């Protein structure tokens, strides 16, 4: 009887810790300083404006480790965290040979990333990821995207 009770207790604690870790509200204490980066023009083309920018990747790493690492792993190294492995994203676009179509694909992935971070993920009433739009500016989100691209395998 005792082992079964302990098993159930452990399972309950695991579920509880998962829901706490996932969090329903974005951490308002996250601060990302993007002042050293070029400002994003209102009429800038769609997509990540900081792609390939080493300084942005550096800022993105700090931002990621403050805001995202709890669920996606420190430095995006996912060792069984509750969130998906973000280094495995965007594997379809590089395989596309046509540069025009490939660019369309990359812009779609960028837009999906931006919206996912801004709006979060809620499915059938369960918050899987909080909305970060009140905490992270688009520039801050693009630095995180740039950091992840710099680390992609």
């Amino acid at each position, binding site marked *: 009887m005792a082992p079964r009770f302990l098993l159930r207790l452990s399972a309950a604690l695991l579920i509880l810790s998962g829901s706490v870790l996932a969090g329903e509200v974005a951490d308002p204490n996250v601060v990302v300083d993007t002042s050293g980066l070029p400002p994003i023009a209102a009429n800038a083309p769609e997509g990540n404006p900081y792609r390939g920018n080493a300084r942005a990747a550096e800022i993105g790493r700090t931002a990621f480790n403050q805001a995202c690492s709890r669920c996606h792993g420190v430095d995006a190294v996912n060792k069984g965290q509750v969130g998906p492995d973000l280094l495995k994203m965007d594997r*379809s*676009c590089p395989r*596309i*040979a*046509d540069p025009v*179509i490939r660019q*369309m*694909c990359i812009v*779609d*992935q960028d*837009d*999906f990333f931006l919206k996912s971070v801004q709006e979060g993920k809620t*499915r*059938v*009433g*369960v918050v899987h990821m909080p909305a970060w739009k009140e905490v992270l500016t688009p520039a801050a989100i693009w630095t995180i995207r740039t950091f992840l691209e710099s680390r992609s395998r």
Partner: protein
Amino acid sequence: MLRPMLSALLAGLSIANLPVSAAGNPAEPQVYGTCGMWPHARCRGADLRHKDLSALDLAGVDFTGANLARADLRAANLAGAIFDGADLSGARMAKVNAPGASFRNARLIGTDLEFAKLMRTDFTGADLTVANLEAARTPFAWFVGARLTNANLQETKFNATNLRNANLEGALLRYTIFPDSSFEGCTGCPTDW
């Protein structure tokens, strides 16, 4: 003699089944207007009627308001895809993998969802009249206010499914199971389950 003929035949079949881009290059993803056939694509309001999208990886694609009537999506990966307000009437969706997908207020009249994997899928307000969900699995899915009248629900596994205010009148409920499902306000649900 037979073996080379067979391999040539199989090779021909596999090339014929590959999507072909506008440039005619095999293995390149197809693009319909601004809607590309890759994960996380933006396909809001796209006209995809009768298109063959079978076995494609369309995870996270936004098909909000799109017209996919009679499209072929068999065995496609639709994890996290959004079909809110889309028209999927008569679409062939057998064996789709659609965990976390959203079909809120979508039209799925006569849609074939046989053996579909629908974990945490949201069908709130959807119209699934005469749809085929035979042997589909729907753990933790929501069918709140959905219309399933005259649907084929034979061997459908509604585990922990939210069927509040749904309408199952005339649906075929043969070997259908509903463990831990909620039926408040549901018409035609087996409330004695």
